[in-house]
């Protein structure tokens, strides 16, 4: 039994060799009913989110709303400037030449939608976050290379050092360690 260290424990970090192993492991951890845990992989492993039982991302809605407002904002800008604010006779064309205003409308729609996609993603992921407890483990550096990890956090209600460790051992983890917070 490892004696409790002075530093606060963040959780248990289990290391796996292949996608196949971590996939199975995740299913086990999910079925064990843990909430505050996460898995780490060098690349997106197909359906791993389902294996973890995550809800689908809501990013799409955000992008949709921003895209629409970008487009309508663009058309409004052009209508207001060329009809209300600065109406001026150009080549005998109507002040509100909406046909000619389509390109800018379209571009602004795309621009805002893309901003939403990128910054929305970062926001949902709470990025940038330059410190994370997992970085305290040397082995974790390989998560961006070829190793796969599961970390069950100590703040999880079901977390208990022994039970959790046995659970992880049961998943065939190649290595298990405690990571400090």
């Amino acid at each position, binding site marked *: 039994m490892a004696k409790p260290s002075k530093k606060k424990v963040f959780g248990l970090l289990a290391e796996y060799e292949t996608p196949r192993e971590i996939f199975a492991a995740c299913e086990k951890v999910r079925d064990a009913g843990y909430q505050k845990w996460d898995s780490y992989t060098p690349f997106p492993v197909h359906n791993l989110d389902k294996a973890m039982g995550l809800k689908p991302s809501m990013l799409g809605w955000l992008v949709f709303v921003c895209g629409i407002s970008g487009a309508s904002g663009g058309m409004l800008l052009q209508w207001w400037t060329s009809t209300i604010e*600065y109406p*001026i*006779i*150009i*080549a*005998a*064309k*109507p*002040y*509100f030449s909406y046909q000619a205003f389509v390109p800018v409308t379209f571009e602004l729609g795309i621009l805002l939608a893309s901003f939403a996609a990128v910054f929305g993603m970062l926001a949902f992921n709470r990025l940038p976050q330059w410190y994370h407890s997992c970085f305290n483990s040397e082995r974790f550096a390989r998560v961006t290379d070829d190793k796969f990890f599961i970390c069950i956090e100590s703040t999880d209600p079901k977390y208990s050092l022994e039970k959790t460790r046995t659970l992880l051992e049961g998943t065939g983890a190649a290595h298990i360690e405690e990571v400090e917070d």
Partner: protein
Amino acid sequence: MSKPNASLKAYWRSLDAHSSLVQGSAPQASHDEFPAEAAGVGGELTQLRVRRRSFVGILGASTALAGLTTGCIRKPVERILPFAKRPEDVVPGEALFYSTGFQVGGSVLGILAEATDGRPIKIEGNPKHGASQGATDVWAQASVLSLYDPDRSQFPQTVTDGELVGADWESARAGVDEILGAARKAGGKGMALVIPWTVSPSLRAQLETLKKNYPEARLVLCDPMAPINATASVEMLAQPGARMTHHLSGASVVVSIDSDFMGAELDHVRLSKEFARKRSPLGQGDPMNRLYVVEPHFSSTGANADHRLPLRSSKIGPFLIALAHELATNHGIKMPSSFEGIIGAQELGEQEAKWVAALAKELIAARDDRESHSAILVGERQPAWVHGLGLVLNVALGNQTKSVHLRVEESAPVTEDLNALAEGLSSGAITTVFCLDTNPALVAPGELGMGELLGKATVVHAGYHLDETARLAAWHLPISHQLESWGDLESSEGIITVCQPLIVPMYDTKSTIELLSWWSSGHWMPNYDLVYSFWKNLLGGNFSKRRWEQWLHDGIVSGIPRSPGIPVFEHFDTLAEAINDGVSKYGPDTEFEVNFHIDPKVGDGRYANNGWLQECPHPMSKLCWDNGAYISPADAKELGVENCDLLNIQVGERTIQAPVWIMPGQASKTVSLNIGYGREGIGYVAEDAGINVYPLQGAKNPWFVANSGVSKLGGQRMIYSTQDHGTLDPGLGYPLRPIVRETSVDAEGKWANPEFADEGDLMKPEDLKSLWEHNTEATLGEPKLTGKQQWGMVIDLNRCNGCSACVVACQAENNIPLVGKKEVGNGREMHWIRLDRYFSGWDAESPEAVMQPMLCQHCETAPCENVCPVAATTHSPEGLNDMAYNRCIGTRYCANNCPYKVRRFNFHNYNKRMDEDWGQDPVGRMVRNPDVTVRFRGVIEKCTFCVQRINGAKITAHVAGEDTVADGVIVSACEQVCPSEAIVFGDVADPTSRVSKLKATERNYGVLSDLLTRPRTTYLGRIRNPNPELA
């Protein structure tokens, strides 16, 4: 300017004293005018100082002369005053017009010169003056730029140990008085005074005095632009002083015998007007005159001909003889008995013979018609005997008092020609030569070798530049610009104008009359006193201050009883001999014939340093900054030369090398050269502009010489034309483009094709549908043009003769920069109005030509506006296509999208270049029109319909409490200058305006209007009036 030295310093000192009055009181305006110059112009301090001073002088002048504005006249005080005391009638920034006169060659124009803040900036024609009738020509327009020519001679100079050095007038007077004294002792023996064509009564009086004081002195005429041959012919037939003028107001048949009467001949402005007025039938059945032109070189007159016969000059005399013979034998025209055996059949080509027969018929028909008559105009290039024969024919056809007027000018000076001068110089009979505003060393025919001859004599030269003669002179005296001096001019018809200055001499110069008065009588008097006292004495009791002021105000001297005598012809035998002699002198017509022409731009060279004229494209060849050797396409093929290839042209031992310019319509086996180019050392502008062809000229007949050697030399001299493609045929087998539309009219005045103006559009105007409802208020419809008046223009292709006066006028009015030869070569000329010249049938040796002035069309649906990303060019409520220079970012998209290619881009900072690189700074800047923005690098510019004039007129109307401007009050610069009234500007919303009436005629059409550009500028299609027998 020569480098400063002892005598020059003395000169400056005296100038200090001269302008000591203004020390400390240099007016604010001078600082505004010259911000940077104080920092140093060309680094030469002395230069800088004289310019500052002269400017102070200018301000003083404006003060002094302000009185001369319309209404009240005051004698100019010769003192310098700052603007601190504002003279009455001078509102800073407001233009004042002064009536004065302008002379070039024998032609006199009454002009109104515009001055703003004391700076003359624009010349307009004086509507009250018969010779100009409100119009002017290129030379008058450009003369204002010569005033500010930085290269003009600015102080007397004399030869000290071999080189010309500056001097002051005191020493100049002393020096020249010695020479005069010696001459006077000898009673004028050995002295010659070389003068230009003199039509100034007061100058003529001075010449009389000279004759009195120097009885032996000889008077020599030196003026290539003067009507010398024409005058000689009348004098030959009648008596010395006999003069003739032509009039076309009533002529239905006009025959030009090598006469470019719309270009360089005597009274070209008046003749253009008179001709054009009978030229433009607005509907079927309207009368229209018919013009025949026989000439070796395509002139703008030839371009307007209904029938043009390219004929080498030496064939033109015989052609006229043949015509006379035809008239005498087949039409019973009575010839003087002394013509027996002289007027006989000539060997003529088939074409010429056909012409003679047809012409004779026409002339007789015109004689028999009670309403109309004919006119035969002989060009100055033809020798006197041809003029004489033409005159005899005119008289015989009953044209005297109709198309030909004769008078005797008793006061006309009796002069000798340059041959006499040369002969006198070489024989030593002439040892002292006074040149008054003449340049014999340049313009004398090369055969005379005038340069060397003058070198042997003592020469006193008074001139505007330190020119070819000045460099041979013991003394060079700078003369004032005509806008700086008092004088008077009598037009060919006897209309007299008193010329008043707008400005005191900018430099230390004297006017010609001051100099002549000094030379002739030793009186050293201000020119105002000279002119004033001349007229005072002439009228005696009838003279009154009021009358004098009236003259100055109107620009016309009135109330002088004058009854010029009518010359009587008695010496037909002399003419007969001359004819006989003349014909026999002509060489064989197998060899090349070299022709010399007065240049439509630089004249005889006197305007060679004038940038506006150098850059103005030649009316026919569109060449800028150069003259070329014009030869016909066939001859070019035979010689195996292309444009710009150098030709070696030889006459006797004299040869020149000139670049070829292939000219359709050039008579075969002839070369045409324009005089006045290739001047060296007179100024920045003239440097390397063209080839000097005077050396080739022969002494007896300067204008053409047969049997000369013309051969390909190898090598090239790049000369640039502003129009690369000369026809409406796009090539690659595509149809002619309907840009210019024309038809012909028959004897009854019926048009061959009544719909000609509407044909050529890809879609009929009624089929062109706008996407939006026209002229609505709606946001989704086409915005309404709310202006009460809608501006538009009509250009009559029948009237336009391509004289290019509008090009220069526009340049002067709108501060259009010069770009220089290199940039013209890059295709970057800046002119807002250009004259497109199209030949029909390039290969034809005798093509027809048509001129089309092209300027911003102010399209209602302007393609340029739509594509500008920053809305720098937009539409005004009055239908103007406005250009906001300050908003322009220079994408040039508008220029690409303009179907008429009338937009111009400032690829460099051309105005800065003019000011600094061209040494125009700061004086050159003073010519600019303060009402028009000076454009900077990187912006587009184009014709504005002279919006500054439109708004000026609107303000005036508004002040008068009217909400519209009356028709004809606003005249664009191009309309105002046009001698043939081809351009009409006005309100198209008002159906009664001139422009609306013209647009309503059948001849009206819009160029490329099938693009639905709805141009506000439209054209009246060209109508030719061919003779069925020649067609």
